[in-house]
């Protein structure tokens, strides 16, 4: 499955099943975005990609019925931000946003807090039979370490 730009000049989309093997397609979509937008700071794309993958992981891990959930990603590059919309056909749920990062010894529970740390906006809504995520990272805000 490959991304295409049919939805608009700056839109990249991907549709498929929310299964582990499809995560590579999400990475490929972001790689295509980076390749076609050399003006983007690679670190911005990398951190945005990390957040998108964390949300995708959640759909793969918790979406039911397992293996039958379909998803659609739309990535948009704007002058000041990069955005992703993710729609999936999994069961309804309420994401536990706003939780603090787990302690050092925890082996799980970092996905959503990490995505939140990497994004400027993270919105979730249930639209009919579809879960809808909107993820936004403003560009050029990379802290110097």
């Amino acid at each position: 499955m490959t991304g295409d730009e049919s939805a608009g000049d700056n839109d990249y989309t991907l549709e498929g099943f929310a299964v582990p093997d499809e995560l590579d397609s999400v990475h490929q979509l972001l790689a295509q975005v980076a390749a076609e937008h050399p003006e983007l700071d690679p670190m911005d794309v990398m951190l945005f990609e990390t957040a998108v993958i964390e949300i995708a992981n959640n759909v793969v891990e918790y979406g039911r019925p397992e293996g039958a959930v379909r998803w659609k990603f739309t990535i948009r590059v704007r002058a000041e931000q990069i955005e992703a919309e993710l729609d999936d056909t999994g069961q309804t749920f309420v994401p536990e946003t706003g939780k603090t990062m787990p302690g050092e010894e925890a082996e799980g529970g970092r996905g959503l807090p990490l995505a939140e740390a990497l994004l400027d906006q993270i919105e979730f809504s249930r639209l009919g039979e579809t879960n809808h995520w909107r993820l936004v990272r403003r560009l050029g805000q990379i802290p110097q370490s």
Partner: protein
Amino acid sequence: MSFEEVDQGGYVVLAPEGKFNLVAAPPVKARIDDLVAQGKANIVVDLHAIDFIDSSGLGALIGGLKAARQQGGDLRIAAAGPQVKAVLKLTNLDRILAPYETVEEARHDW
């Protein structure tokens, strides 16, 4: 996920490649558990060929670190790239999993 493994006697170097994600994390963790069970609890995970890690990969490293320490060993990471370092920092794991620049530095006292 394929990964190279070199047993140096006093320690073992594991070098996974590609994306250290939901798919790759379970086999890497299983291999670390096997090594620890064999008494090889000093492990360096060489991340030079990893271009992306997610929270599943971090979980595997933390799980491996805990398993190694329970057996009197340790798990250290080396040659992490910029994405891995950024994620370690954001998750506050850069203290417990301090990134060494090279495998040699990571295994300095073994």
